[in-house]
C-alpha cells in the first residue's frame, strides 16, 4: 500500500460535520449528523455507505458544492490550517480544483458535451494559473498521457461523446490532477463502469496516488473496491460513522452489526456455496439518532439499551465502533477456506 507517515499532521480534517436540508413543507432532513475524520498525505481513506448514508453529501460539503438555499452546514472542515466552512467564495475557488479536487461518479454527465477535451483541460490549467496559455495544450497532452490515454495530442480535439466511459473517467481524473492537488476526493468513481474498466481505473488511481503522495478519499458502496484500495475505512449509516478502522482488522473482525450485515450479504466470487444473509428490512426502517441507534430496527442483536440514548463512537480493540452491543471478538465472518 502507500507509505503513510503517521507523525505528520492531517492534511484535511472534518470535525463534527452536520448538514441539514430544509425543504418547504416537509420536516428538515439531517443528511450528515456529526461526522469526523481526517486524512494525511499519501493515505487512502475509504468511506463506505449505501444510499441515505450521507457519504456523498459529506464530500460535497468539503468542497463547498452544496446549494446555498435551504441547506445548513455546521461543524468544521480544516484544510492545511484554513477553515473551509467560513472561507469566502473567492478563497474556496482557490482551493477547489487546485488543492482539493474531486472526481465524480458519472463520466457521461460530468464533462461538458459541447467543449472539446482539450478545451476543458486547458481551462482548468489556466484558471488556476498553473502555466501560460501557450504551454497549456502541451501540459494537457502530458496529463492525458499520464492517465493512460493513447494518442494524447489527437484526443485533445475530441468531444466527450467520442470517448468511451472508461476514457471519460480517465479524463475526469486528469482534470482533477491537473493542478497536483494535495487531496483527491473520488465519489463512486467506478460505479458506472464495467468491471474490467473499473479495474483499469482503480489501478490508475493507485499508481497516481503513490507517485505524487496525494491523499485519496474514496467514497463508495462497493466493499470489494475498498478492500483493495484503502488504508483506513469509515462505515457510514444514516448520517453518522458507525465503525472505522484499518482495513485488515475491520474486514477480518467487524464489530458493528451493520458492517457485519453488509459483509454477510455480499456474494463473493472466491467462496463456494453458502447462503446470503441479508440485512432485514430496508434503509427506510430507521429511527432518529436522538431516539437511540438508527440501525436498531434492522439489527439482529438489538437490545433495550440500544434505544433511548444514541450510542457514541468508542474505541474498541483495533477499531472504533458506535454500538452498545458490538459483536464479540473471535466471531470471524468467514468459515475457513
Amino acid at each position, binding site marked *: 500500500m502507500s507509505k503513510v507517515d503517521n507523525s505528520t499532521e492531517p492534511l484535511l480534517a472534518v470535525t463534527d460535520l452536520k448538514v441539514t436540508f430544509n425543504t418547504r413543507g416537509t420536516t428538515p432532513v439531517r443528511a450528515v449528523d456529526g461526522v469526523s475524520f481526517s486524512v494525511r498525505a499519501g493515505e487512502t481513506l475509504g468511506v463506505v455507505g449505501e444510499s441515505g448514508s450521507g457519504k456523498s453529501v459529506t464530500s460535497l460539503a468539503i468542497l463547498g458544492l452544496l446549494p446555498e438555499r435551504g441547506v445548513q452546514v455546521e461543524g468544521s472542515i480544516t484544510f492545511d490550517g484554513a477553515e473551509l466552512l467560513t472561507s469566502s467564495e473567492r478563497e474556496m475557488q482557490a482551493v477547489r480544483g487546485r488543492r482539493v479536487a474531486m472526481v465524480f461518479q458519472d463520466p457521461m454527465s460530468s464533462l461538458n458535451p459541447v467543449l472539446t477535451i482539450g478545451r476543458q483541460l486547458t481551462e482548468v490549467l489556466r484558471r488556476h494559473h498553473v502555466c501560460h496559455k501557450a504551454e497549456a495544450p502541451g501540459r494537457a497532452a502530458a496529463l492525458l498521457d499520464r492517465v493512460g490515454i493513447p494518442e494524447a495530442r489527437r484526443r485533445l480535439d475530441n468531444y466527450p461523446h467520442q470517448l468511451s466511459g472508461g476514457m471519460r473517467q480517465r479524463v475526469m481524473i486528469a482534470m482533477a490532477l491537473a493542478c497536483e492537488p494535495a487531496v483527491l476526493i473520488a465519489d463512486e468513481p467506478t460505479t458506472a463502469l464495467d468491471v474490467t474498466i473499473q479495474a483499469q481505473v482503480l489501478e490508475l488511481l493507485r499508481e497516481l496516488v503513490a507517485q505524487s503522495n496525494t491523499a485519496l478519499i474514496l467514497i463508495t458502496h462497493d466493499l470489494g473496491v475498498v478492500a483493495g484500495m484503502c488504508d483506513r475505512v469509515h462505515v457510514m449509516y444514516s448520517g453518522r460513522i458507525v465503525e472505522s478502522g484499518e482495513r485488515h482488522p475491520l474486514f477480518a473482525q467487524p464489530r458493528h452489526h451493520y458492517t457485519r450485515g453488509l459483509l454477510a450479504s455480499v456474494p463473493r466470487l472466491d467462496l463456494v456455496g453458502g447462503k446470503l444473509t441479508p440485512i432485514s428490512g430496508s434503509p427506510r426502517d430507521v*429511527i432518529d439518532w436522538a431516539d437511540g441507534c438508527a440501525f*436498531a430496527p434492522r439489527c439482529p442483536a438489538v437490545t433495550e439499551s440500544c434505544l433511548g440514548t444514541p450510542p457514541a463512537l468508542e474505541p474498541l480493540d483495533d477499531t472504533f465502533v458506535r454500538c452498545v452491543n458490538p459483536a464479540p471478538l473471535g466471531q470471524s465472518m468467514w468459515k475457513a477456506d
Partner: protein
Amino acid sequence: MATVQEHLQSLMGNRVVETSGSSLTRETWNRLRHNRIALVGLGVIVFFVLIAIFAPWLAPHDPRATTWFDQIRPSSVPGPSREHLLGLDESGRDMLSRILYGARASLIIGIVSLGIGASIGAAFGLLAGAFGGWVDSVIMRITDVMLAVPGLLLALSIAAVLGQSQVAVMVAVAVPNIPLFARLLRSSMLAERQKDYVNAATSVGLGRRPLVMSHIVPNSLGPMIVQGTLALATAVIDAAALSFLGLGSADPGVPEWGRMLANAQRYLNVAPHLSIIPGVVIFITVLGFNLFGEALREALDPKLRR
C-alpha cells in the same frame, strides 16, 4: 425481546404516515392546493368564468343599447360615474355591461376553439403514437404542412372563405392548435413507449389496444394538460387580436374585448379608459391562465421544484 420490538414500533410509528394509496393525481392536487400562485391563477380563471356565465344577471344595462349616445362629444367620452361604473364607450353604451358580456365571447371562443383544436390534434397524435410506421409518417407530414402556414395568414384565408363572423375566429383559433397537440401527444407517447413498464405489459401478453389505452396514454397526458392550460391563454389573446383586426362578427355592436380595443383607438387621447379597461381585463385573464398553467406544470413534475 417483545418490549424492544414494541418500543421500536412506537418510535418508528412517529415517522411513518399511513396513506391508503395516494395516486399521482391526488398528489398533484395536493401540491397544487398548497401553491399560492396556483390558487391565485385559479381564482382569476374561476372569476371570469363566473362573470361570463352570469353576465345577463350581473350586467346593469343592455350592452348593445346606445341609449346614452347624447352624452358623447367628439372630444369627450364620459368616464366612470355612479350610474355607469366603468363609464360609456364611444357609441354611448355602458362599458361595464359590455365587459361582462365580452367575457362570454372571449372565453367561449377561447375555450371552445381550443377544445376542438386540441381534441382533433390529440386524435391525430394518438393514431401516430399508437401505430407508428407509415401512419405516423403520414400524420407528421400533414402537421408539418399545417405548421408551415403562418397563423395570421391562415386566419385571414379562413375569414375570406367563411366571411366575417365569430365562427371564422373560432376556426382560426382552433386550426393552429391541431398540429401542436398532435405533436405533443405523439412525442409523449413515443417517450413512454421506451419505458420498461410498457415492455412489461407487452411481455405479459397485452394486445395493442389495452397497451396503448391503459398504459401509454394515461402517462402521456401530463404535458398535454399543461400545454392546454397555457394554450387557453394564447387562445384568448388570439381571439381578441383577430377581433381587433376586424375578423370577428361583422356587427360592430357585439361586445367583444378585442373589438372594443379596436374601436377605442381613435379615442386614445381623449378617452384612454376605452382602451385601458378592455386591455387590463384581457391582461388579467391571460395572466390567470398563465399562472395556473405554470403552477400545474410544477405540480405535475415534482423534480422541477426548487
